[in-house]
Every structure is written in C-alpha cells, then in structure tokens.
C-alpha cells in the first residue's frame, strides 16, 4: 500500500469526527424512549431512504458479494434486480405503508413488538425476539469481518485491532444516540457510499479499456474458468451457469433468492418504516432508494466480475487466484492495486460507511430485541433508555466474539443465511399480519416456528455448504448430508419459505372459516 499515511489518517479522522458530531446531534434530539426506538415517528424522507439503503447495503454486499461476482460472474446482477424490485418497490409500496400505519396505531417500537400487537400474542414477540437475538450476530459478525479485512491492509493495522476499533466506534453513537443518531449517520454515510461507488464504476472501466472492451475481455476469458468450477456448471463470467448445475442452484437459490427475498422481512429494515411520519415520506423515499441501491449492488457485482480482467491483464491470474483463494479478499486487493491512492482512501471511507451504517442498525435491532422483546417484555424497564443501552452493548460483545471464530470466505454466505432465516420465519406472518382483517395468531406462531425449524434442519442436515462445516449431520448420521444432489445445493430458504407460507395460508384460511368466539376485525 503506497497511500500517504498522513492523508489517510487526516481523512479518516475527519470522517469519524463528522460521524460522531452527527451522532451527537441525534443524541441531543433524543428526548424519550420513542425517539430512541423509532425516531419519534417523524423522520425526513431523504433520511429514511438513505438510512434504509445504507442499512440494506453493507460490506457484505460490496466485499462479500463483489467477491462472489468475481468468482461466479455477472449473473449476480439478478440480485440487484430483486434488490430494487423487491427490496425497494415492493417493500416500500406494499409493506412499508401498511407497516407505518399499523405501527403508529398500535404504538409498536420494534419488529417483534409489532408482531405481538398485530396478533395480540406475547409468544410471537418472544419467538421473533429470540430468532433475532440468535441469528443477527452472525450477520453482524460478517459485516465486522468485511470492514476489518479492508482496514487491516489499508491502515496497516493488525486484524484484531481493526475489528475491535471498528466495533467500538460504531457502538458508541448507537448506544448514546439511539435510532435518530443511527439514521442521521446512515444518511451521511449513504452519501459517501454513493460517491465512492460511482467513482469505483468509472475508474474500473477506465482501467480495463472501457465498457464494451472490458466486458468483451471478460467474455473472452471463459476458457480460463477453473476446472473445479467448470465441472460444477460454470460457463464463464458473462454468462449464467448451466441450468440445474450445482453453481446454478447456488447462484439462484442462495444468492439471488436468499438475499433478494430475505430483505422483505428484516427487522432492522421494517423498523425504518415505523419512523416515517406519513405515507408521503415513504413515497418520496422510493425515488431516492431505487437509484441508491442500483449504484451500490449493481456497481459492486459488475466491478467484482470485471476484476478478473484487471488481474489477468496485470498478473496473468484470475481474481480468485490472485486473492489466494479467499473470495472476501478479491475486492480489497483490487482496490489497493488498481485504484489511484486518493480513491483507496475514498473507498475505505465508503466501506467504513457501508459497514458502520449496517452495523449500527443491527446493534440497535439486536439490543432492543434483547431488552424490549425478551428480557424486559411486559416490564416497565423494557422501555428505559439505560436498559436498551445495556442490551446493545451486550449484543455488540457477542457479535464481536463471533467475528473472531468464523472461517474465511464467510461474508456472503453468512449474509444469505441471516436473510434466508428472516424470510422463512417472518415473511408470511408479517405479510398476512399487515394485510389480513383478522390475522390468526395460531397461524402466525405455526408459520414462524415451521419456517425457522425447517430452515435450521435444511441448514444443518441437507445444504452441504453449511452442513459439512457444521458437522452435526456427520456426528449423528455418519454422513455429511442426508440428501444427494440437487437437494444438497438448494438453499434452505427455497424449502423453508414455502413451508412457512403454506402453513400460514392453510391455518389462516381455517381460522377465517371457523373464527374463534368473540373474534372481530382489527
């Protein structure tokens, strides 16, 4: 790394200073618990859009999925299609407005609290709170790793120090400023991300000779696909894998569907709808959110695939070989080698922003789930600022410890796992809850449990990518997975979501035919 250390230090300090000042402004505006948890339900549309987008897009999207695109090619662009079509249009228009209206009416402050009040069931609050507390640290740890992986070589810091500094600084403004500080800093960080990713796209194409020349060069590299990948169905970096091959299933079920649909029922994103004052704020946020997501994931996936051209032109290697086999190291290595020094600094700030904006939202969601929905449910202390601050600190420690024990090349997979579980467990109950006139509590509980249990079973006993390293199936049944191909490469979401959806629909339909005595429309 030849970046001037003084310049780097000064810009990073300015960035951190600005973040803390904005966080402090959020802290000063936080007068009560409703401010701390849902920003007083009065957020500006621009802040909602950028906060939603910046929370949605983390280092996982840029480092993890950019690396996945370097490995699997431009087919990952279908995730961008879903990110915008489902993650913004569908999420804001179909779910956002209803969530805001109901959340305001029943005064819900967290996602589990919303589920509890819609279905009038504390058990649902416990179940959803529990799922958040056990699964969100995995996603949080993946984001911590993504950020630390880039800071480590760029600032020449030991990995452990990079990770710890990163975790603590983010926690600082979340703990004190609550969601107002989180959303204000998200908006600031989202703006930096937009600048950084725009520059990344332009500079990458400049480095490889232009749009058509660069894409053509990548097309012409098809015969360089490693034998191991080719035998699994990969055909090149500008074509989708062979239909029905193991890589096709991974691309379509884990990456595109797992993350693309999973975004709809993520607790930290749903809460953002509840911070809006009215539906007009959400309508306006859509205008900003769509282009923002295009410039984040669209650019990361395109550049990720194109890194192969750069590495081949300069070292005769494809990207994954140049990065020593570590998918998560491709994007940081490319930035450090291919970009001008000043951009390395800008991109580091972009990544810091992406990681901090998502981390802060996750810390807030996990901490409040632990405090409001589990430990303090039904107790007055659940709504005290101090209790929520302790909850956030505790979950931050758990996530940081997890980051130290996760294996390499984990970022994209951990993200997909978290999002898949969220969709399988929460999506049907959430969708019916905000739309049905008389949502059935029994159906919601059964759907949530069946979705989560099916997801865990498929993850631990069938899906090779997780079942094999986990070793539980091997220990109990003496073989790495229970089912052969193609089942062993189909993502748990693709099985678990239909299960929870069918359970929800059947029981909801039954409840509609035989309503419980005294049941009235909400």
């Amino acid at each position: 790394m030849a970046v001037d250390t003084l310049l780097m230090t000064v810009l990073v300090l300015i960035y951190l200073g600005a973040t803390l000042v904005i966080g402090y402004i959020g802290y000063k505006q936080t007068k009560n618990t409703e401010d701390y948890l849902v920003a007083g339900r009065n957020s500006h549309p621009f802040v909602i859009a950028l906060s939603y987008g910046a929370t949605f897009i983390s280092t996982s999207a840029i480092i993890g999925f950019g690396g996945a695109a370097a490995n699997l090619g431009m087919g990952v662009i279908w995730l961008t299609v879903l990110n915008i079509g489902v993650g913004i249009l569908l999420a804001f228009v179909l779910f956002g407005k209803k969530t805001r209206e109901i959340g305001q009416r029943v005064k819900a402050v967290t996602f589990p609290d919303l589920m509890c009040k819609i279905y009038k069931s504390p058990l649902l609050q416990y179940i959803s709170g529990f799922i958040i507390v056990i699964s969100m640290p995995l996603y949080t740890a993946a984001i911590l790793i993504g950020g630390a992986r880039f800071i480590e070589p760029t600032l020449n810091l030991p990995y452990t120090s990079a990770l710890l500094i990163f975790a603590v600084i983010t926690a600082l403004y979340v703990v004190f400023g609550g969601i107002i500080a989180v959303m204000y800093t998200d908006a600031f960080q989202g703006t930096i991300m937009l600048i950084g990713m725009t520059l990344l796209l332009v500079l990458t194409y400049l480095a490889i000779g232009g749009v058509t020349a660069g894409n053509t060069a990548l097309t012409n590299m098809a015969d360089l696909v490693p034998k191991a990948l080719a035998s699994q169905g990969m055909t090149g970096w500008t074509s989708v894998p062979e239909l029905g091959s193991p890589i096709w299933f991974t691309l379509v079920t884990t990456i595109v569907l797992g993350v693309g649909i999973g975004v709809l029922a993520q607790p930290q994103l749903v809460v953002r709808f509840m911070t809006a004052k009215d539906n007009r704020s959400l309508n306006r946020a859509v205008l900003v959110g769509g282009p923002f997501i295009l410039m984040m994931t669209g650019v990361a996936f395109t550049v990720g695939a194109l890194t192969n051209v750069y590495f081949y032109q300069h070292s005769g290697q494809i990207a994954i070989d140049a990065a020593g086999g570590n998918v998560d190291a491709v994007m940081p290595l490319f930035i450090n080698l291919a970009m001008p020094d000043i951009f390395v600094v800008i991109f580091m700030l972009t990544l810091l922003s992406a990681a901090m904006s998502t981390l802060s939202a996750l810390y807030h969601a996990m901490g409040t789930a632990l405090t409001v929905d589990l430990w303090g449910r039904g107790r007055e202390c659940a709504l005290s600022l101090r209790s929520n601050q302790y909850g956030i600190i505790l979950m931050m420690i758990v996530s940081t410890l997890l980051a130290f024990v996760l294996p390499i090349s984990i970022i994209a997979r951990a993200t997909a796992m978290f999002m898949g579980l969220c969709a399988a467990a929460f999506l049907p109950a959430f969708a019916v809850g905000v739309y049905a006139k008389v949502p059935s509590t029994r159906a919601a509980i059964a759907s949530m449990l069946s979705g989560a249990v099916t997801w865990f079973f498929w993850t631990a006993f069938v899906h090779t990518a997780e079942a094999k390293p986990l070793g539980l199936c091997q220990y109990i049944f003496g073989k790495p997975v229970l089912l052969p191909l193609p089942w062993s490469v189909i993502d748990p979401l693709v099985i678990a979501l239909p299960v929870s959806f069918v359970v929800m629909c059947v029981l909801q339909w039954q409840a509609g035919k035989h309503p419980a005595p005294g049941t009235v429309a909400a």
Partner: protein
Amino acid sequence: MLVFGIPDPQIWIGYVLALGFTLACIVYGFMNWNRGGANDGS
C-alpha cells in the same frame, strides 16, 4: 447478440431490468410526491 460485450441474454436482460426497476422507482416517487401526507387522510 453481443450487448456491450455481453453475449448471454440472461445477463444483459438482468441489467435492463435493474435499470427498468430503478426508473420505476423514480417515476413512482415523482407521481406520488405529494400523496399520503398527514393531512391527506392516510
């Protein structure tokens, strides 16, 4: 057919759809800019 150097329609259609949905977000935002305000009955 090569589109910007990309031979597989399954890839470039993905890019077209990503741009199309982005445009839809922009149009939706403009069309509903003043709808759903607090005094608008929402």
